[in-house]
């Protein structure tokens, strides 16, 4: 039963998408059932982004979508068409020094996700007018550090950024 004038195109089982990944243009065909996490890890071989839980709880798959932290395990790849995606591979290693110095990482499983949320906070320090670092970091679970190392590392990074500014 169709009442529209021209027939609508058939649904796609795979679609071609263009997006910006760590500042570079990317074009590829993704399956309709593909998650951004799998596109990044399996197709583009950017394995920095980790899968912990696959249900949005642990934050180890955190990437930025149009500049905001999201769980790549919950993003269908077709939704990033025309948008900006940033992953941990795009973070300059020199920015990691404060986290290393404070013991923000031990086994490292959570670290790529922690870094992505932490770096988002560093780029938007005005968030701290309404939120604490702990509230902003609550979506990144860590079984090793007890969180103090992470929170202290972010505080040290923010201090250093303020001095430089």
């Amino acid at each position, binding site marked *: 039963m169709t009442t529209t004038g021209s027939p609508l195109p058939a*649904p796609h089982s795979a679609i071609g998408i263009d997006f910006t990944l760590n500042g570079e243009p990317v074009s590829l065909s993704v399956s309709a059932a593909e998650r951004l996490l799998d596109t990044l890890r399996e197709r583009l071989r950017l394995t920095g982004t980790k899968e912990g839980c696959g249900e949005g709880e642990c934050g180890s798959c955190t990437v930025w979508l149009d500049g905001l932290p999201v769980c790549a395990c919950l993003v269908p790849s077709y939704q990033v068409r*025309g948008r900006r995606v940033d992953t941990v591979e795009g973070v300059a290693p020199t920015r990691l020094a404060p986290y290393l110095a404070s013991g923000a990482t031990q086994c490292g499983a959570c670290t790529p996700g922690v870094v992505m949320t932490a770096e988002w906070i560093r780029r938007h320090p005005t968030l701290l007018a309404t939120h604490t670092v702990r509230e902003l970091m609550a979506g990144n679970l860590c079984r090793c550090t007890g969180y103090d190392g992470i929170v202290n590392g972010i505080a040290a990074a923010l201090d250093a950024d303020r001095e430089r500014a």
Partner: protein
Amino acid sequence: MSIVIPDTRAEALARLADDQTLIPVAGGTDLLVHWPARVDDHDRAYLDLSGLAELRPLRWTADALVLGALTTYWDVVTEPRVAMEFPLLAAAARQVGAIQIQTRGTWAGNLVNASPAADGVLALMAYGAVVVLESRGETEEVPLDEFYTGYRSMRRRPDQLVTAIRVPHGARDVQLFEKVGSRGAQAIAKVGVAAARSAAGWRVVAASVAPTVRRCPALERLLAAGTPIRGPDDLLPALDQDVAPIDDLRSTAAYRRATMARVLYHGLRGVVDSVR
């Protein structure tokens, strides 16, 4: 599986009218949970709403705050006017999951997912929100407190999209939102309570204590009558008429009943004259 990617809201509604098995996708924070294991869902057909930019912004009209179909929790958290005029919405948004969920999860998705624990629904119902449903060529408005008809069932036809949620302005002299979970973040409510009093009367709403988020008319009557309430136990007879908590993986019926009474009592004590 297959995906339909409409360019406009009109096209989305036309596609849904032609194929009522299409499943709308917004932020995916319900639909994609444990996705690789949900093989049956891979065979279905989906309608991607995420590209419909016109459905994203929240708007202020003379008499309401209007959330778009794609308005996220984070959109609300970062709009200071919401915290001033609708503090329960801001409180609910900040307590959903964590930032990574707040940036993706939508209010409309929360409403249609229809969890009995839904935090967004809890706060919206306390404000008397109205659900705007559109199908091809037709718009319908349903008050949120009449939207649910049973556990995960609702007055939404498969050819309808939620295109907006209207939250009416109005002076409210009491406003309460309390979520009890096993930790502060990333926790689904064991019990949720929201309440608001305006010139039109009380709205008391509860989550995780019935098959749907629901209003509590007996508690509303009790508060409206001004009967002195001297402890949580004084709320129980009314509460038992309103809700029917169960034992499940998150909590027990007994805990939920006792906790709801305490949270409501302590939230209103000293704020409402009759609650001492």
